[in-house]
């Protein structure tokens, strides 16, 4: 079990991570989600032993890791761009850590790992001949080779294109589950975090602002900024929040975060408004509607409807796409 207690990491005196506390149970996958510059990569590097802690501690099963160099921590680190050793074949890359430990029967283990990541028969290829996705799979196999007690993933899928990223995220989750690996992943991509992880910590300006079970965090963002970062389109407060919550049949609260698809155009509904603009996407029509008594909100309509700017529409609220949050500052 990984425990971070009041960890602070500084670069030349400027704090990059401030007072971060985290716990990660064995077998879980924790995603640290944050915008770029939020300190999430520094957090990961500190856990890997690549940056010293200015204050606080990082410990594993209760043992403080301060002073334990990277290569003795038993944490495998996988980079955004894989960082395969260019002069070694795929098999030698994957078997690198096995050779370091003189593991018998390494060749069989390498074959097994390559099968796990779906790259059977790639043993003798050189990294330069692989596609980006294949390289990341090899990097993953290399990291998993010696069954690290903790796998550290630094934006593992960010360098890939969108379609591949989605597919590989699912694969990554399945591989981590199958191997029973404890993993800490940093990413700025909500979808990636949601697909791969079961726990979530949100970082902003070097601080961990919220953490917990991933669905819970999504359901109840700690503050308006977190809600916006998690993909909620707007955060309403005061009477506007009250009006929307009443329409959704929920209890009133000081603030509410609204996803883009929370309002749906229907034949009749508790809310009505005037369409401001509309945009057709492959699956539905996305609208901006000036809702009576609330103001501008996002809404969606089915493709077979044709609301135009200036049209009056009725709206129903999908309560599962709202999140009650504490009021903003």
């Amino acid at each position, binding site marked *: 079990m990984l425990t971070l207690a009041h960890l602070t990491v500084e670069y030349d005196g400027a704090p990059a991570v401030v007072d971060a506390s985290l716990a990660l149970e064995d077998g879980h996958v924790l995603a640290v989600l944050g915008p770029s510059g939020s300190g999430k990569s520094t957090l990961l590097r500190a856990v890997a032993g690549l940056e010293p802690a200015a204050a606080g501690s990082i410990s594993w099963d209760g043992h403080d890791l301060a002073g334990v160099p990277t290569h003795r921590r038993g944490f495998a*680190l996988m980079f955004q761009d894989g*960082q395969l050793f260019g002069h070694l074949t795929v098999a030698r890359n994957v078997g*690198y850590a096995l050779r370091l430990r003189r593991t018998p029967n390494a060749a069989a283990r390498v074959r097994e790992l390559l099968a796990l990541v779906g790259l059977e028969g790639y043993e003798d290829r050189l990294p330069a001949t692989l596609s980006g996705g294949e390289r990341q799979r090899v990097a993953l196999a290399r990291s998993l080779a010696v069954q690290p007690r903790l796998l550290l993933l630094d934006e593992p899928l960010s360098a890939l294109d969108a379609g591949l990223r989605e597919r590989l995220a699912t694969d990554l989750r399945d591989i981590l589950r199958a191997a029973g690996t404890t993993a800490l992943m940093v990413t700025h991509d909500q979808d990636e975090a949601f697909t791969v992880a079961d726990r979530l910590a949100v970082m902003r300006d070097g601080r961990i602002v919220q953490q917990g079970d991933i669905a819970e965090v999504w359901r109840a963002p700690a503050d308006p900024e977190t809600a916006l970062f998690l993909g909620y389109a707007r955060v309403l407060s005061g009477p506007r929040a009250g009006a929307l919550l009443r329409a959704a049949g929920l209890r009133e609260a000081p603030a509410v975060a609204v996803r883009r698809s929370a309002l749906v155009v229907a034949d009749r509904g508790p809310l009505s408004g005037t369409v401001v603009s509309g945009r057709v996407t492959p699956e539905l029509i996305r609208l901006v509607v000036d809702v009576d008594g609330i103001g501008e909100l996002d809404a969606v309509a089915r493709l077979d409807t044709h609301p135009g700017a200036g049209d009056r529409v009725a709206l129903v609220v999908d309560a599962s796409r709202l999140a009650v949050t504490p009021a903003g500052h």
Partner: protein
Amino acid sequence: MRRALALAALAAVPLAVLGVFFVLPVLGMVSEGFWTDGRFDPAAVLEVLGRPRVHRVVWFTVWSASAGTALSLLLGVPAAHLLHRRRFPGRRVLRAVLLVPFVLPTVVVGVAFRELIGEAGPLGFLGLDGSAAAIVAGLVFFNVAVVIRAVGAAWESLDPRPAEAAAALGASPAHVFRTVTLPMLRPAIMSAASVVFLFCATAFGVVLTLGGLRYSSVETEIYLLTTNLLDLQAAAALSIVQLVAITSLLVVTSRLRAVPDPTLARSTARPPRVSRADWPGLLATGLVVVLVGLPVAALVAGSLQVGDGYGLANYRALDTVGSRSALLVPVTDALVTSLRTAVDATWMSLSLGLLVAVVVTRRSRSRTERRARGLLDGLFMLPLGVSAVTLGFGFLITLDRPPVDFRDSLLLVPIAQALVALPLVVRTLAPVLGGVDDRQRQAAASLGAGPLRAFLTVDLPAMWKPLLAAAGFAFAVSLGEFGATSFLAREDHPTLPIVIYHLIGHPGAMNYGMALAASVVLAGTTALVMLLVERLRVPSVGSF
């Protein structure tokens, strides 16, 4: 704390060597100037600096170095463009050939120029013998290679897209060059210029052999004051002047040195063919080829001249001690000594240089650590600027008593030469090590590899070619080293450059012919080594 200790441990050996064999001798030389009979006496230094001859010497050094630098840039920059950004048959061979002058022994170049422009030489009618113009030409002969190399390497890896964007916006080629290309090249040109100035200002062999008695630079003046006039105090005073000037120049240089950015978009686009628009490059390259080719041709021709005809008599005489016993040992013995010394100097500078390169290129975690590494980097560049004569003389006066009595040690010469070659070795290795993505080492470490194992996995595969190249470089520099060696070589164990210098100084056509033949042998050996190095295609060789 652990990192600080590791840094200190890695730096300890090179620092100790530098301390004993560089700082100590140089300090010894400096204190010679300030202390008279055990008394601190700075007035003597000031007295020396007031002498009119010293003024003349300093002025000559400054203007000849400036002229040499300007001409090297004028020829080198267009030639770099042609040789590194244009495609034509024989380009690689030409590039390799033009790199050779830089490591040619200075004495050999001096001899070659005298053979060309001397009274009896093919260009004797120009009356350039013993003139300042001849000295400047000699300086350019050496240093144009440095400019071509440093600027060419930068030009080759320049992202061509900004220039293309400017052209697409309607800029003419000249305008593109002035507003886009030149600003991007400025760091490389500035750093080449400062290094060339450094080399010109401390040139020894060329000025000594071409300048005769009329022209003397600070470097040769130190030599003359020490060996001929025995005015040690004046020599020390001049050394101090040189040390201060060159240290400040080095500080400026290190500021200017472009930091290679590994994330920089490197273009590997095929260079276009030569076209008529490349006339400046063609002209400059042609001039460089003439400048480099003529003296060498004159040297070879002279070495084959026997009486009124041609023959190999001069070469056959190389296993003798010359007419009227000009030498203590045959030239062939000196060649063997040279090769042995070069082997020793090579392994010494290579092992020191590797340690230094590792120390200065590791990623720093704090500002203090970065400063410490920067300081070390600068410190190990110092031998580049401190004159070899000062170093050699310092060796003589400080390493002659216990606990450091090396006077009779045969290792003294290779150690001095290793220090002279050290900056070049570091400059060849450091960019390569610095270009290795640090995350590769981190990946290895996270897989369980210790520092040594990570070095073997990540750094060594990237390094073995640069290591070989640096070895060749150090070998060539050691073969040609004259300044420090002239002080330190024992009479019964001279190196080839020393023997050549002796032979020129002794009267007799036979001795002169032998000097020419020995020069050809020495030049051929260093050229061979350099051509092998060039085949390794290491981009950082010879760029500073």
